[in-house]
């Protein structure tokens, strides 16, 4: 009897379909999770893993998607995260949601305080917290403020918080992405020990070694569809089998033809090492060296948290990280990139992956944004030449096909694709030799994507060195002449266009230090 229950299904999600303003994020996903197992969900960035978990936890409320969720045999209709938590489903996100200035105990019981008529019973709170901390193997006083803990320990506090809510199904979204090896190992052990206590876990990860180590079952999601569910006990379930399933789509023929004309080396970076800005012991970029030549498009492939953006931003005027070491050469001469203006003056441009945060003044007009990195050139005696500025904006509006009634329209009102074109215009107008494009097609529609591919090819044809950071492997394979793969801050592979396949890249991208 007991055994039968142990093998029963705790969760069924059937035919889940979710659209975001016309874009289908999930397309009829069906997934079954057995009671007491560790179920891995695996897929590329943007495949729909996180969306699926948000559907499950009620972040996207019942009714905003199609399909049925059954939890413990009952149909669920969660209208928010409180509903799912009250049923014992707790999700721990990549960005931890702890309040930094409160103590561990306060965080564990936040919103769930042990109280009597509004007065908190601190003795019981701390006692309970101590017990929970022992369960997750965290050796800290419950009165320590969360601020003093590293990311790994914060993650354990999150799990302790989940346990305090009598969790039955624990969902971890990329739990080890920000952790070092030791913390990762501890966390994986903890998940195994929770399993022994009868807690079911869903772990979203693309680290295959991790999945191999703790998961019983893995479901692979690709392009919003559940491709297959494999049992890890099965001898056929190898890493290459999973990789093939993750990437196995056809290359769309949306990449314009181009015959590369590759010239002299323009940028060379040697032994570049960057540490995390807060957790200064953590190495985010580990001794990376690479080169880019004129007219060449060089891709950087890597999974989330691999350190691609950090590498690019640290080179661009030390906009990220601390204890940065290494050297940068431009056309063979060593250059300083200590500040953003140094980098710009040396002909380097960086178009950010996060347009809204780092790329645009959303309450400023298109023209003002395009000129923002080139005001020195556009002014005399400190006075901006607005006539030229306007002309430049008009020129980019037509050459980049920015769809807008006027160049004074605020960039915050533009669509993602048009915003991206403004960011690209801004950096192209700054007259760089080396352009670092970080996820230039993220979150934009297919038409605009195609236009941006054309722009990237034009830049290379004009003799610029282009560094293309992308999470979409087909994009890298379709555009880049050479591709570097990054995993955990290290450049783990370099592949020519001729030899690059999604499988080889994915092998390098998931390569881990042994």
């Amino acid at each position, binding site marked *: 009897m007991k055994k039968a229950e142990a093998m029963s299904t705790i969760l069924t999600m059937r035919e889940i379909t979710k659209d975001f303003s016309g874009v289908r994020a999930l397309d009829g996903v069906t997934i079954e999770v057995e009671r007491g197992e560790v179920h891995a969900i695996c897929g590329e960035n943007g495949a729909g893993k996180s969306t699926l978990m948000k559907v499950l936890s009620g972040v996207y409320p019942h009714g905003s998607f199609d399909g049925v969720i059954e939890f413990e045999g009952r149909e669920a209709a969660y209208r928010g995260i409180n509903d799912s938590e009250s049923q014992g489903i707790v999700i721990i996100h990549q960005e931890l949601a702890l309040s930094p200035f409160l103590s561990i105990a306060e965080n564990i019981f936040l919103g769930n305080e042990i109280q009597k008529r509004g007065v908190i019973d601190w003795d019981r709170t701390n006692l309970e917290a101590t017990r929970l901390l022992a369960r997750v193997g965290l050796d800290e006083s419950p009165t320590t403020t969360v601020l003093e803990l590293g990311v790994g320990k914060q993650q354990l506090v999150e799990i302790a918080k989940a346990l305090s809510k009598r969790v039955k199904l624990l969902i971890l979204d990329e739990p080890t992405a920000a952790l070092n090896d030791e913390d990762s190992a501890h966390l994986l052990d903890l998940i195994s020990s929770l399993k022994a206590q009868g807690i079911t876990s869903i772990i979203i990860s693309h680290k295959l070694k991790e999945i191999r180590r703790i998961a019983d079952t893995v479901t692979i999601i690709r392009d919003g569809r559940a491709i297959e569910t494999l049992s890890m006990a099965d001898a056929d379930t190898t890493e290459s089998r999973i990789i093939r399933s993750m990437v196995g789509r056809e290359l769309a023929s949306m990449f314009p033809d181009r015959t590369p004309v590759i010239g002299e080396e323009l940028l060379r970076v040697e032994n570049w090492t960057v540490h995390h800005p807060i957790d200064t012991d953590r190495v985010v970029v580990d001794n990376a060296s690479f080169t880019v030549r004129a007219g060449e498009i060089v891709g950087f492939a890597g999974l989330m948290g691999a350190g691609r953006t950090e590498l690019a931003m640290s080179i661009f005027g030390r906009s990220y990280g601390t204890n940065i070491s290494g050297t940068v050469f431009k056309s063979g001469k060593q250059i300083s990139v200590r500040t953003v203006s140094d980098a710009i003056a040396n002909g380097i441009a960086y178009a950010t992956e996060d347009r809204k945060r780092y790329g645009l*003044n959303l309450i400023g007009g298109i023209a003002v944004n395009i000129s*923002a990195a080139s005001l020195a050139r556009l002014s005399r005696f*400190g006075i901006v030449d607005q006539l030229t500025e306007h002309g430049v904006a008009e020129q980019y509006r037509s050459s980049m096909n920015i769809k807008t009634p006027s160049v004074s329209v605020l960039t915050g009102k533009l669509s993602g694709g048009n915003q991206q074109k403004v960011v690209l215009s801004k950096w192209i107008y700054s007259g760089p030799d080396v352009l670092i494009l970080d996820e230039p097609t993220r979150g934009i529609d297919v038409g605009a994507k195609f236009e941006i591919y054309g722009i990237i090819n034009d830049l290379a044809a004009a003799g610029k060195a282009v560094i293309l950071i992308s999470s979409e492997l087909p994009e890298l394979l379709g555009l880049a002449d050479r591709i570097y793969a990054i995993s955990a801050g290290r450049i783990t592979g370099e592949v020519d266009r001729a030899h690059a396949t999604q499988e080889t890249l994915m092998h390098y991208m998931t390569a881990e230090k042994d």
Partner: protein
Amino acid sequence: MNALRSIRIPKLPGNLRQYGILAALAVIVILFQVLTNGRLLLPGNINNLIQQNAYVLILAVGMVIVIIAGHIDLSVGSVVAMVGAISAVAMTQWDLPWYVAVLVALLVGAAVGAWQGFWIAFVGIPAFIVTLAGMLLFRGLTLVILTGGTINALPAEFNAIGGGWLPELFGTIGEGRGSRDILTVVLGVLAAAILLLQQLRSRRRQRKLELVTEAAPAFWVKNLAAAAVIVALTWQVSAYRGTPIILVIVAGLILLFTFVLNRTVFGRQVYAIGGNLFAAQMSGVKTQWITFNIFVIMGTLAGLAGIVTTARAGGAVASAGGSFELDAIAAVFIGGAAVTGGVGTVPGAVIGALIMGVLNMGLSILSVDAAWQQAIKGLVLLLAVAFDVLSKRRGGNR
């Protein structure tokens, strides 16, 4: 408020809010003109309005730059007092000529700005904290300098900066009571003509750039009305004692800083910092230096306001400049600046300051109790910003 809402209906892209606030000023002026049986716009009262509120106008011009960049300056009232005290000491105890004392005062203001700018821009302490500390620090130093007393008997040339008039260069129309200063009238007509020419020029430029220009009737109605208001006001003032010296200074500052914010690289970068600090940094803007310079400008203008206040009062007192910072901040927000930074204009701040000034003047003429005056001003500030927030929300829903 219904009056304001109806004004929003015509299609006035971008500057919508500016027109709304201008209309509010007009409504308030007309309201008090009626309530005071026409006394609000008597020559002497207009003159006083200008001289009494010069300090808010000067401070608001600096404060709007600070606020656009996403900061705040709570210390300006104390800086006004301290600079006033130093200028008075310079003239009465060090026997410096008045113009040197003015220079010293401006330099002290700039130094105060550099001090605060250093902590804010380079050390990274929030402006709220640094200038709150400055508010206490400089008020304390004022008391030290004045040793609790007051300094009077300042040179007449100095006092004229705050309370004097330009000489009647071209004589007067008429004699004795009711005579008009010709210079004032000439300056008024000149200002109106320059306004029209400048507007025509910028309209022509916009045409050339194929920017959306307003329809010709709207353009002419708006600008001819503005020109007429300028001429009418100066005509009224000319019947008092001539052109207040401070009016010339304030007008110059308004023009200068409107230009700085609209046309210079520095102005551009101020808006860029306030609009998105990170994006500005990632575009190579030296954000720390810009912030530092903003506070130097604010300090210098606070120094000027200190001179003006001391000159008008004819002496330095330790309590001078009390709550001036709040007047300036209120003016800037009434004038449409955003608490989150990135939005605001000098003309907006000026109109905001005038609204507060007219309220002060009108309520005083009506002999409304000072306590009630303050309460009413508080409500006006709240309503103005609420109007802004609500109109934005409605815009967002469309």
